[in-house]
């Protein structure tokens, strides 16, 4: 058995071992080296969207995920909110996920505290952001908010009437917002496209998990103006707002894992092509 035969018939357990060791090392030493994340157009367009907003303009951020997808989606939620607070863009938050309310409350509180520290100004509930709560049946809520936020949310999560919240003043529906960013881990993303964008035509972009992302690329440029997919997308956004955190810390592991897989594919193909050539000669 020569080297090329071995390359073709390599026991997959070597692949497993190698991958495990490499990912573990990269994760251990994640703070030692940083990877240059290449930003992509679909993430940049969300960044630019907020960057070009005037202070005082409002966006709706919908956190449609539950704690099980928190690890993957939380970094992008944080980066987007920090960016808004830095620009003075006001954030209206909502959740369409049954188990999302407690989580959103926590995220908004944490991020606003962090932003207060970072940007040296108090981020105030009601002035800079608000959380209007959760209602079931996402499709109907999305349609309802297109009519008037008060249809499903007469009061916010803390039971304050919407008209008494300064940012909701004179905000009736999507028309009064600069746009909507929905961070979702399930079918609500389809609903935002079908019932939100198609019907009310507001600028919409999505933040989704890595598995879902390929399903939503096709909507870029028509229904969506931007898309953030998984850790990579979140890492790009963190880089754009210069607030590198969780997603960027995960990137070394991601990069070496991808490199490992690419390497093994190359080994496999090299071996395959060489043995094939030899076969042709002998026959």
């Amino acid at each position: 058995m020569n080297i090329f035969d071995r390359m073709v018939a390599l026991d997959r357990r070597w692949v497993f071992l190698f991958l495990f060791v490499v990912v573990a090392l990269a994760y251990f030493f994640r703070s030692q080296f940083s990877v240059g994340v290449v930003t992509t157009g679909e993430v940049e367009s969300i960044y630019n969207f907020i960057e070009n907003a005037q202070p005082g303009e409002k966006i709706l951020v919908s956190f449609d995920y539950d704690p099980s997808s928190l690890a993957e989606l939380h970094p992008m939620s944080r980066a987007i909110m920090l960016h808004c607070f830095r620009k003075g863009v006001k954030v209206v938050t909502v959740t369409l996920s049954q188990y999302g309310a407690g989580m959103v409350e926590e995220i908004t509180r944490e991020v606003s505290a962090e932003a207060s520290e970072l940007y040296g100004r108090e981020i105030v509930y009601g002035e800079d952001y608000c959380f209007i709560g959760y209602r079931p049946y996402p499709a109907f809520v999305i349609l309802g908010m297109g009519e008037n936020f008060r249809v499903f949310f007469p009061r916010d999560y803390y039971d304050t009437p919407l008209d008494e919240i300064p940012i909701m003043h004179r905000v009736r529906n999507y028309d009064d917002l600069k746009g909507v960013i929905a961070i979702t881990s399930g079918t609500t993303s389809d609903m935002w496209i079908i019932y939100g964008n198609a019907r009310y035509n507001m600028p919409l972009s999505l933040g989704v998990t890595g598995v879902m992302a390929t399903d939503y690329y096709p909507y870029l440029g028509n229904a969506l103006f931007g898309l953030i997919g998984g850790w990579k997308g979140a890492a790009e956004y963190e880089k754009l707002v210069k607030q590198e955190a969780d997603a960027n810390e995960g990137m070394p592991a991601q990069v070496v894992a991808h490199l490992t897989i690419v390497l093994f594919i190359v080994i496999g193909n090299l071996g395959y092509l060489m043995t094939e050539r030899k076969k042709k000669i002998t026959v």
Partner: protein
Amino acid sequence: MSKTKMTAWVVFAFVIIAFAVSVALKGALVTVGAFLTLFIFSFLYKDNPYYKFAEHLFVGVSAAYWMCMGFWGTMVPNLFGKLYPPMVGGVLPALKDNPAEPFMIIPLILGILLLMRLAPNAGWISRWALAFIVGTTAGLNLVRYLRSDFIQQINNTTFSLYISSAAGFDFGQTMSNIVIFIGVLCGLIYFFFSKEHKGAFGAGARVGIIVLMVTFGASFGYTVMARISLLVGRMQFLFGDWLGMIK
């Protein structure tokens, strides 16, 4: 004692000692979680008694878990609670005063019919329950799929092939739209069953399968990211939560 048996006992002793040490140092709960995690990972090397243990435990516990969830989450509030509310008053006081809904006797009967299949020679009765379930969803699927997978798709694919932007005629976008249009048509041609893939039709089908393959490769490549995230999550548990080596 053969050599393999010896090794097995040594490994077993090692696992037991490690388990005991871990319980002493880190507490029982996180230790159980960590060892079960390692047992499952050991399957990557080969099937072994530790994986078998975790697997069989997992199957038994999960089956019971869903049975209990189904009972307390569905049967009690939606069947008993509606059929005769006072019956569940003890556990779900909120439902106690609701009016009884006699119609709920129907699923009870259908459910019992379903169980009749355990009795010999009465298996055919259970088909009534199956017919009910399948019939209901068939009707639902009929309209749902036609709406979302057929009509909605026509709407989505009907776009202008010719794109001009502020800068004038947008060549790239126009080409992309043409590729999408042709791609969809050829993809559909590939799925034709009653026509032989020959000549121009065959060429269309060939283009269709090419587009499909490119897509499959891309989806596969993209998913790697999500799967590695899962692995990193497990490492965080093993090295962070359990061993405390990383924060």
